């Protein structure tokens, strides 16, 4: 089970609304390399891990990804807060507004709704862990692209934190993959 902690893993305090940036960051909520896909992918893979190492790591990183969903959501909320209809139109978010008002809805930057086929599981723990390494690398690259698109420190700080977490997660998945490969050949 999960329990709520009434705090963000890393603070988000964006002072300047930015609709265009919100549209771009949306992909890290409900896009192919987004936090929602990562969380669900890791939590789905726990059940076939061959030992406790894998079960623990997937549970813990999957749980952290849920906290990242919340950080991204907070960023979207603050970037879009008090937006005028004109600003929404100008940023190409009028379709989003028509369908969902100011509710959050997981989609990519183009407005394509979150798709469960983003979740890569193969019933093979090596293939699963390697797909997670790929997922972390793709997320890292996406965060770099997002960082290229803004100079607002209030946006860059949480993006930089989240990007760094992808690097650490990649390393832990790699260690797990290497350990399992070694066990296999023993």
């Amino acid at each position, binding site marked *: 089970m999960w*329990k*709520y*902690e*009434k*705090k*963000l*893993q*890393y*603070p*988000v*305090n*964006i*002072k300047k609304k930015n609709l265009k940036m919100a549209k771009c960051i949306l992909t890290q909520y409900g896009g192919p390399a987004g936090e929602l896909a990562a969380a669900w992918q890791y939590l789905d893979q726990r059940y076939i891990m061959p030992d406790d*190492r894998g079960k*623990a*790591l997937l549970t*813990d*990183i999957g749980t*952290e990804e849920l906290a990242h969903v*919340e950080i991204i*959501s*907070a960023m979207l*909320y*603050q970037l879009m*807060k008090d937006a005028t209809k004109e600003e929404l139109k100008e940023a190409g978010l009028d379709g989003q507004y028509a369908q969902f008002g100011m509710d959050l809805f997981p989609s990519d930057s183009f407005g394509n709704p979150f798709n469960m086929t983003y979740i890569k599981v193969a019933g093979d723990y090596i293939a699963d862990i390697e797909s997670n390494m790929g997922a972390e690398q793709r997320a890292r690259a996406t*965060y*770099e692209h997002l*960082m*290229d698109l803004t100079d607002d*420190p209030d946006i*860059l*700080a949480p993006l*930089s*934190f*989240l*990007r*760094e*977490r992808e*690097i*650490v*997660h990649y*390393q*832990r998945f*790699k*260690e*797990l993959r*290497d*350990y399992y490969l070694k066990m296999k050949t023993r």
Partner: protein
Amino acid sequence: MNNYINNMFPNEFMMAYPEAIKPGNVNELSMKLSKQAGDNMNFNKCGFDGKINPDNLYDVYNGFIRGNMFPNLFNQYKLSRPYDVKGDNERNELLNKVNAYCFAAHDLNLYLDTHPDDKAMIDLYNEFSADSKKIINEYESKFGPIFVNSNEGYPWSWNNEPWPWENR
């Protein structure tokens, strides 16, 4: 003393944790914070393969602002240096401290999942974990519950603002 504090961001660290630096302050946790950074110099464990590792852990604050407790994994993009995390009031300041300690414990948690036999790192995890509990208690006694079961008294305080996603 810790080289990251001394060489990199002395002013920012003092601003974030002034009580940790001020001489004569007897706040046990804060003393520990500055001491711990020095203690971490003994750690030589945080490597790519768990064996070869020339680096030390960051102290709690510097690990938190980087999103990474492990210097040899740290990799910066675009920014010339990580942003400081500052609170503009007592509540946010204390919340940053809660977050920093919880983060340190969590990053070691992930490390230990793949290095379960690292005794020294388990000891350090236990320290971070105990410290974060104390700081959470301090925060909750002043500003209300982070966990619902810490709710105390009347009226029900769990549903008080601010919520985490609200700009403060």
